[in-house]
């Protein structure tokens, strides 16, 4: 399935190949001779087969479309059968549909190129960041990172609040999923730069929910989306989205994310 990528890495799919062929013709997309393109496209597919590469389904579908277009043009206009299928109503020309897709794909490819140049430029600009000067109200020293055992200790103290272990009872489907909780945590963390560990569990209603939130948190730490710090010995663990400790610990909640995002 993905074999064609190895040898023909430039072509990410049939549209990419088609666009390449159009470019080779050095004409506007609207002016392109699709019958010639069809021949070249199929020649390329044959080449892939000669190289013993599996031709991906998308390429075959595109080849079929091109052959269809070509075959239609062999007939005089008045003998062309109106193509069946709802998409072909109102005399929709399959050539136009193909060109439409090509234009759309090309625009997004160009947009991707613009994003890429921005990506490059972002590597070239440096932010103005004055070093943190020692002022009167400066904050605590750098906090050490937290180990897994600290986290387990913290969560088990939270679990103590939910002591009602269901001794006997119905076994019901788990109402919470880790991915759902990850989503919730991600939303929560955008509202402030850092959170106290216990705050993440404030809304939990059962042991199961605490455990699921905890698993979600561990997963996000693994994905490096969350970082944990402890400002003082035996102090409460703080969770933040930044690898560096936040300068001013728990900031007031009204410091929300900018509105224009």
């Amino acid at each position, binding site marked *: 399935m993905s074999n064609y990528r190895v040898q023909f890495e430039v072509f*990410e799919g049939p*549209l990419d190949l088609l666009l390449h062929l159009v470019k080779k013709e050095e004409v506007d997309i*609207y002016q*392109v*001779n699709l*019958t010639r393109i069809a021949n070249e496209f*199929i020649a390329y*597919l*044959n080449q892939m087969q000669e190289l013993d590469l599996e*031709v991906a389904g998308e390429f075959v*579908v*595109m*080849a*079929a479309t091109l*052959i*269809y277009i070509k*075959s239609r*043009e*062999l007939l005089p*206009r008045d003998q062309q059968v109106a*193509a069946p*299928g709802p*998409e*072909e109503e109102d005399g929709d020309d*399959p050539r*136009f549909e193909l*060109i*439409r*897709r090509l*234009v*759309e*794909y090309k*625009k*997004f*490819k160009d*947009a*991707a190129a*613009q*994003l*890429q140049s921005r*990506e490059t*430029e*972002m*590597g070239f*600009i*440096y*932010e*103005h*960041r004055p070093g943190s000067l020692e002022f009167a109200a400066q904050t605590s020293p750098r906090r050490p990172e937290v180990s897994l055992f600290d986290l387990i200790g913290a969560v088990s103290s939270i679990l103590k609040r939910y002591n009602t272990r269901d001794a006997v009872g119905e076994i019901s489907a788990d109402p919470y999923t880790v991915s759902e909780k990850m*989503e919730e945590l*991600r939303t929560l963390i955008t509202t402030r730069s850092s959170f106290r560990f216990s705050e993440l569990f404030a809304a939990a209603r059962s042991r199961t929910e605490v455990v699921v939130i905890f698993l979600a948190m561990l997963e996000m730490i693994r*994905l490096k989306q969350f970082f944990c710090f402890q400002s003082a010995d035996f102090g409460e663990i703080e969770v933040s989205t930044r690898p560096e400790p936040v*300068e001013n610990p728990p900031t007031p909640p009204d*410091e*929300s*994310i*900018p*509105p*224009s*995002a």
Partner: protein
Amino acid sequence: MDLKLVIESLLFTAQKPLSPGELRDVLNKAADEDGAEELVRAFKKTPVEKIEEALHELSKEHEAANRTYRLVCIAGSWQFVTQPEFAPWLRAFLGVKNRPARLSQPGLETLAIIAYRQPITRTEIEQIRGVAVDGVVATLLERNLITQAGRAEVVGRPMTYATTPAFLEYFGLAGLDALPDADELRRIPVQRPDSLLTVDPNLATAPPDLASTPPVPMEFGNPEVPSATPTTAPEEPPIVA
């Protein structure tokens, strides 16, 4: 005192990018200090719009002054950054910026489609790109450049995707409106060409009436209504491969 200048001094010394809301909080705090002068108290309750206006003016002034740095807005927060052409020296002085690995071509294309058409389902992305995007979407999710935005109200309730604030930061965009050619790419107008010159001129059967077909502007790609029909051609034609 000019509001612009007060803001400039704050941004100049800030440890992190500041949003207009944060700037407003500082103005209020300064005005509330004991024994604050009239001058300082005058900026209490400055509306955020005024601050935004001042920021844009300030940014223009810096642009016009043609300095080595400029004031930019990234993901809604403002900061001073150097102009890119000074990178060679800054790299030697400060080191290479710590940025994640560059995105692949499929990654960029998929991200561009999501950025302009969000919220969008995976099927819709695949219709535009013409190839499966599962792996790419997973990578973009893992890099936190996109996020699951909800589910589309169509059969199967497929997941929809949207970009995150981290996307704006990564590309240095003020907001989604700052995407280049945003209007055009959200709905791409495609002109039906005067004549579809797809016909081989050697064929005697070229449809003679095509040349007279007037251009029909056409819009498509409504992000709200994911179409259930595939855009590929009908399966009737024989597969010669």
